[in-house]
Structure formats: C-alpha cells, structure tokens
C-alpha cells in the first residue's frame, strides 16, 4: 500500500542524504505513528480508517527503509534515478567477488561442521566490513556526489547484508 509518490525523507522531515540523524528519524516516526495509527481511529469513519491504515503502513515502510543503511542508500539512489539492483547494473570489482565467494564458502563449511564460533566470528567480520562501506557511502553520496561509485558500494553492502542474514539464520538453526 506504500505510495510510490511519498518521499520518505520528506515524510520524516529529514534532509535527503545518506548521513541522517537516526534519533530524529525515530522521534519523527513515533510522532507520525501517534497521529496516524489505526488505534487512533477505531470508531472513526471508513474513510478515516482507510487513510490511517495507509499512512501508518507507509510510515512503517519508510522507517524501515531509512533505518537500514543498505536500503537507505538504495532508496537515495532511486530518488536520483538509479536502480542499484537492476539486472543491467551488475558490474562488480573482481576482488570483491572473490571476497564474497570466500565468505560464502566459510559459511557453508561452518554450517556443515555445525561450527557456531566460526559463524559468530563471520557475523562480526561482516558487520565490520559493512561499517566501513557505510563510511565510504556517506562520502560518495553526500560529499562527492559520485553516484556511479556509490551504486557499486551499495551493491556491496546489499551483498554483505545477505551473507550476514544467512549466517544468522544458520546460527539460529544450530541452536
């Protein structure tokens, strides 16, 4: 139900950039939910209930998109007319591809060996990697305005998030 015309940055009264004040995002998200949540419209007219549902849903979607650095970068690029994950956007530096394959291999081996400590250290390693890409993204998107390099960094971040999610799932299944 999220309307493609809603600009999430505007919705949360934030400047349209990668480096945002997460605290302001949280505070404004809560304010919007306080005003729009379906709990506020239990005995309201059908029309008001519908609008409440739409806005509360959009606010949740927008909050999630902006809170997570990878989806925030991807969304920011979308606003600049670039689809970071389109089929035509596949260029990836060779060293990152090798690195990515190594992570995957590590993950599969640890999964088979039911090796919890290795899985946990892999998650920590991936999180550190993600942090450094986020710093790079802030520079590329907000200062240098280098959208081509930013697209590549965003794709890296999405890759890392995926491996990290898979590693977490593997940890969960082992417990």
């Amino acid at each position: 139900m999220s309307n493609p015309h809603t600009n999430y940055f505007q919705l949360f009264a934030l400047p349209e950039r990668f480096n945002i004040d997460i605290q302001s995002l949280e505070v404004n998200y809560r304010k919007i939910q306080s005003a729009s949540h379906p709990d506020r419209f239990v005995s309201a007219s059908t029309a008001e209930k519908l609008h409440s549902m739409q806005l509360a849903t959009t606010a949740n979607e927008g909050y999630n998109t902006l809170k997570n650095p990878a989806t925030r970068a991807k969304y920011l690029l979308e606003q600049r007319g670039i689809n970071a994950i389109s089929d035509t956007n596949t260029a990836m530096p060779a060293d990152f591809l090798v690195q990515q394959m190594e992570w995957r291999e590590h993950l599969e081996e640890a999964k088979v060996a039911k090796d919890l400590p290795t899985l946990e250290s892999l998650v920590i390693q991936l999180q550190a990697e993600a942090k450094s890409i986020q710093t790079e993204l802030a520079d590329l998107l907000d200062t240098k305005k280098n959208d081509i390099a930013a697209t590549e960094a965003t794709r890296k971040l999405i890759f890392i998030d995926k491996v990290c999610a898979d590693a977490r799932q593997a940890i969960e299944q082992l417990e």
Partner: protein
Amino acid sequence: MALLQISEPGMSAAPHQHRLAVGIDLGTTNSLVATVRSSMSTVLQDDFGHALLPSVVRYAPNGDVIVGHEAQAQQSNDPVNTIVSVKRFMGRSLSDITDKAHIPYRFVDGKNTEATRILQIQTRAGLKTPVEISAEILKTLKVRAEKSLGGELVGAVITVPAYFDDAQRQATKDAARLAGLNVLRLLNEPTAAAVAYGLDNATEGTYVIYDLGGGTFDVSILKLTKGVFEVLATNGDSALGGDDFDHRIYCWILDKVRESSSNFTPLSEEDTRLLLTKSRQAKEWLTDNFEAQIVCRLSNGTLVDVTLTAPQLVEITQHLVTKTLSPARKAMRDANLAIEDIDGVVLVGGATRMPHLRHAVEDYFKQEPLTNLDPDKVVALGAAIQANILAGNKNDADLLLLDVTPLSLGLETMGSLVEKVIPRNSTLPIARAQEFTTYKEGQTAMSIHVVQGERELVSDCRSLARFELRGIPPMAAGAARIRVTFTVDADGLLSVSAREQSTGVTAHIEVKPAYGLSEDEITSMLKASFISAEEDKKARMLAEARVGAGAIISSVTAALATDGNLISDAEKQTIATEIKKLASITKTNDATAINKAVDALNHATEAFAAARMNASVSRALSGKNLEDIKL
C-alpha cells in the same frame, strides 16, 4: 434556584457518556476480565469474589453449559464433556495435536476436505469446535462485566499469545463474535503486560516480557519511550506451557504406579483427568514447599500414593525450562541486543512462579526478574487500559502500541520452496507486494499458496490459505506480471490479494480459509445461538445499524468542529446535509436505509478524512507542512 453545576477541568461534563469497554485475557487455564474505573485498571470479580474464571466448559446432562469453577469441580467425574485448556486447540487440525493419547476427549477431524480442517470435540451436546467452546468462556465474562458495570459493552480488547499464528488469531476473533462481543483489537499478551507494568511504573528503557502461561510461551522485547511501546522482537512456542509440566508429573506418577503394581490396566478417561489435576496441584504446591504427597484411588481400585520432591520436579522438567531459553535468544538476536542492553525482565503467567524457571531467567539475563504485579492478572489489566483508550474514553491518548508480526509470511514457489513476503518482527500495520510470473506458455490461472513460518520448505510451514487467480490472458511463459499483496492489520490478521499487472485485466480471486470457520458457518452458529424469531433478527439488525449511525455522526460532527477549516464551505455544506439525512433516517425502522445513509456519509467525508490525516501528521511534526507530500 438550583445551583449551576460546573465540572472539574479535564473531566467530562457528562460522566454517563463513559463508554463501557473491557480487556479480556482468554487464557489456557484461567480467563479474566478487567476494566478501567476512575482511571484505575481493575479485574472484575464474580458474585463469589473470584477474579479468575477457570477456562473450563462443561456440557451438562440437562443441556446447560457450565463455565468456570463449577465445571472444573466436575472434570474428573465427567472428563469427556468437560473441556479444559481448549485454547491449545484453537485454529488447529487434529494432526497438530501430538499427545492425543493423554487428552481425555473424543476428537473428530473436521470435514475431511482440505478447505476446513479444524478439529471438533464430541460432547453430549454434539460436536463442538474450539471456537464455540471458547465463546462460552467469553460469554460468561461478558455477562460478568455487564452485570458489574451496569450496561452494555461497546467493545473488548482480547489478548492472544504473541506467537499465535494467523489461524489461531482468526479463531479467537471468531469466538468473540460468537459470544456477541465487539472486538476493538486483538492484543498480544506480553504487550498487554508491558502496558500494565510500564504505566504503573512510568518506565522508560528496554524490557523483556517472559510470559509462560498454561499452554503457550511468549517472549517479547519492548522499547518504552514517552508512552510509545514499541515491540522490537517477539518469539515463543505456542505449544509450551504449564500444562506440559503437569504432563511430565503425570507420566512420572504413572511410571511409579507401574513399578509397584504388577497388573496395571490402561487408565480410564476419569483417571487420566484425576491424575492430571493431582499433577497440577503438586506442581503448584512445590513452588513454596519441598515435597508434595500425591494420594488418590483410581477407578480400578489401585491406590496411588507417591511423593514428589522439588529436586525431582526440577529433574523431570528442566528440559522444558531450557526450551524457553531458545526463543529468548532468538528474540534478542532479532532485536540486535546484548544482555547488558536490557533494563528489566518482567515475568508473566502463573507458570513463572516455579522457582527453577525464575532461576533460569535470572541466570540468562543476569538480573533478578520483576514480579511486583500479579503474574495472573497483569495481562487483563493491560488489555483494559488499551480497551479504555480504543473506546475513546481517554482523549489525550498518550499511549501508543507498536506491535509486530511474530512469524514470517510467504508464498509457495516452484519446488515447494517458500518465498518470504513479510519477514517476522515487521511492525504492524504492514503491506508488501511481490511480483510473480507464469511458468508455462499460455498459462491462464495461478495457484497461490500462503504460508506462515520460518523454514525454507513449504511442508515445514503452516499453510494458511490457497487462492486461485484465474482469467490471466494467455501469454508467453514469464510474460505475465502477477502482483500479490499481503496486508497485515493492527490485529495481526492477514489478507492477501492478487492482480495481473501487464494487461490491466482484473482477474478473479477466490479465498479458501484452510483453518478457521467460514463466514457461513459463523452466521449459522450465530443464528443458532440466538433463539431467533425473524423479528428478533430484524430488531438486532436495526439496533446495530442505529449504533453504527450514531457513532459516525458523532465522530464526523466532532471532526467538523475541530478541523472544519480544512475544507471549503461547500464541502462542509455537503457533509452537513448527509449528516441531517442520516439523522432523520435513523429515526425510522429501516435498517437497510440507515446503512445506505451511513455509506453516503462515509463517501461524502473521503476528501475531508484525507485532509485531516495530513493536517494531523503536520501537527505531529510541529509545523512541518505536508501539503506538498503526496500520500
């Protein structure tokens, strides 16, 4: 001359306008009803001063339906017709019940079609679904509340375990409808407990609610900030509770009896219920005592006389305690939190009184759990607070609950794999769409299978519904664009729609609930439960239409008074005209005409509703003008 009355600032000038609303904790073992009176949440008692209503329903030989203590007293004499812990069967099929051998009921699988697989129980009053049995408990609480509050209820907030899936939630809502209750909201039990606890203590910070009830286990992690209760993650086990501890003791007793008696015959249904009751009593006794003596005579004359010590109880049930820690770890991981981030752990549910469970929680979270509110009542007290707000009794409404969906929702794709559409722990309400395409050349229909769960294979997840999208124009394989939209509302209930995009052709969707009752079944049950002469039905419809009309008139009138400046005078005039029309039609006895006029008023206020929503968000963001944002 009479003195003029002036009300206290902030108090309503018309106290009789207080809308009666209750919170109901529909528990596995006990159920409660609570309400807010003079701004205090209170549990309502029956004529004998009991707050807890045992969730036991007996179908008596004379045709009466008996609920509560009286039914509980008869459970060992009449086990087949006295249903306890019915909550465990809500939204379940017979194949879900793994320990049938130890449950003294005559289960019947629902109609043996895939469409409706809910189980039924054979009683002397006929086949009963868990929904009907639960409705009897809810009816008893409704009567208690209306008697105690002296009026008809406008609605109720009913609590459900956070880890209940869609089928279980739907079943609970169906039971409430059957009991004649207007459900204001289904509220997750740990969230309700957090509300009672958080408001009581004016708490801020990150809290864990550890809720072990009679049949379900939930763990929720909430962030409390200025009246906003945000659930960060929830996890649990909807088939783990105090009953399982009783069952372990029951098995232990059986082993002991078998050891000492050579010719041990299989237990009758009466004996099974008797031993389960004795087991529960022993478990409760061991909370404050070192040993429990279990003495009773079985129907075949065998004397049972065994002693269970507290260390023995720990030994035979420690694995169940350990089983609660795994969901706790998962929730912590999902919330991305470390033990040091937790400001407090609140224990909820009667089963958390067991000392070895308390120790395990304390060991894991490295802090002493909080127990200053009665773990049996805290859920109902929280639900009553939410009910009071939703019924509109509190205008400043500085409390907001942001809850999540406990389990991932997805669709079956090629190879019986699950494609997740909404991940678990997504904040509600939520809507997500995903596009799918056809697999074969010229394919004109698509079968859409909705599942809930975390596993990769469809067979490991719960099947919720099967849809068929028909009338797709023949196209090359992979050319069609089928957009499937999942929407989960604030009650945590899912609805799914599908649409073919590329041609703009509106395709037909058929919904078949795999679990739960169909609309027709509910209607026929409702009809059967009211001694329904045609006149009664008409009177009821008219009363409902009038209540609906009254609600919308007062809501729109109030909106015009505060936000009338948002629309033009002409628009205001149109709305005013529709209000007048509706008000005059309400005086007639024509329910259909009243409902039509309600629709007309709703239609007339659409633009106004949108303007109000934008204005209220602008106000919330203090001065931020949202006019140029298209919502």
